[in-house]
């Protein structure tokens, strides 16, 4: 019996992605771009919420752009482009999450210096995107009132690594008998101190609060103090 030799490795499995994401984050910070990664299950309303966000910035003459990931179709890119902002579709052809290199290859010809905000709409999935750093400074977890109050408890990994939770479709809360207190409680249970924004893309509820939050986060960006999503440093209480 040959005794095995042990090679110490001590490295992160996703080192390659993490290193690229760190590089990208530095580039974003240097250009003064706040990058926001939007994650939710399919059907939560990421695209409509983001379209309204983009429309707001475009209407105010603020440099904004978005990339959106889907397994197939460029439908979401076309919906987002209705806002007037530059949008790129990332088609993953079956892959369940975005990785840093996919984002980079889709934005490499964009001049970051013309942008203040860049949004990444991740694949609709509450599990797989969690482990992949995309170089964002804000990770937003979206949850709609139609999905059930216990989503944060079912998917603690995502909510725990996110900086802000956005409850969407609040105009439907009564019809869905959405238990608001329970949802808020569950969010705070998996991520104490997490900022929560209650929104409706249809009525405009929460949009101003969200825009103000983004402006605050952008004002805090300095190349000297890069932030990582989900780190205590970015938690707003």
């Amino acid at each position: 019996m040959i005794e095995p030799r042990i090679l110490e490795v001590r490295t992160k499995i996703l080192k390659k992605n993490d290193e690229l994401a760190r590089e990208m984050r530095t580039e974003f910070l240097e250009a003064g771009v706040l990058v926001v990664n939007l994650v939710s299950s399919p059907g939560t309303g990421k695209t409509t919420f983001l379209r309204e966000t983009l429309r707001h910035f475009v209407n105010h003459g603020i440099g904004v752009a978005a990339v959106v990931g889907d397994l197939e179709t460029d439908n979401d890119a076309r919906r987002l482009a209705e806002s007037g902002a530059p949008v790129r579709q990332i088609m993953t052809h079956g892959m369940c999450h975005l990785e840093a290199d996919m984002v980079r290859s889709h934005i490499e010809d964009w001049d970051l210096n013309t942008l203040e905000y860049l949004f990444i709409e991740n694949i609709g999935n509450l599990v797989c995107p969690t482990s992949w750093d995309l170089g964002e400074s804000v990770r937003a977890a979206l949850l709609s009132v139609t999905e059930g109050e216990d989503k944060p408890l079912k998917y603690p990994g995502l909510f725990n690594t996110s900086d802000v939770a956005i409850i969407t479709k609040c105009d439907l809360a009564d019809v869905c008998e959405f238990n608001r207190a329970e949802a808020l409680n569950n969010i705070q249970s998996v991520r104490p101190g997490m900022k929560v924004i209650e929104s409706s893309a249809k009525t405009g509820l929460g949009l101003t609060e969200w825009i103000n939050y983004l402006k605050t986060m952008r004002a805090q960006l300095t190349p000297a103090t890069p932030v990582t999503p989900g780190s205590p440093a970015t938690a707003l209480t």
Partner: protein
Amino acid sequence: MHELSIANNLVSIALEHAEQSGDVRVKQINLRIGALSCVHRDALMFSFDLVTADTPLAGAKLHITDVPIVIYCPKCASLRDLPGVQIFRCPVCQTPSADIRQGRELDIESIEVVEQSPFMSPLVTSEKGTSL
């Protein structure tokens, strides 16, 4: 099924380390996986077997050490193990804490290799085939 991507990353790191160590065969890869990493152990093992087939890593075993979540409780001023993944409160004084010190690991600790020998007996070779 992001475990397939994770397995691919894992394999390229393991191969790189193995290649730097001469003519060796990888017997086992030791991982540390945190409770918050969103990785399913069985899905990772399944993906690993898939992506290592017909590579020098074929037949290598994955050994996974589960890493529990540890938070820092500001009130107790100490580190506390959490029994689950849903309630981020100090289990002693119930103070909420988002200050996570452990539990997000997705790490390769080490790789166990054996030297390839040109005089390897057929018995040992067949052991390689059954080491799954």
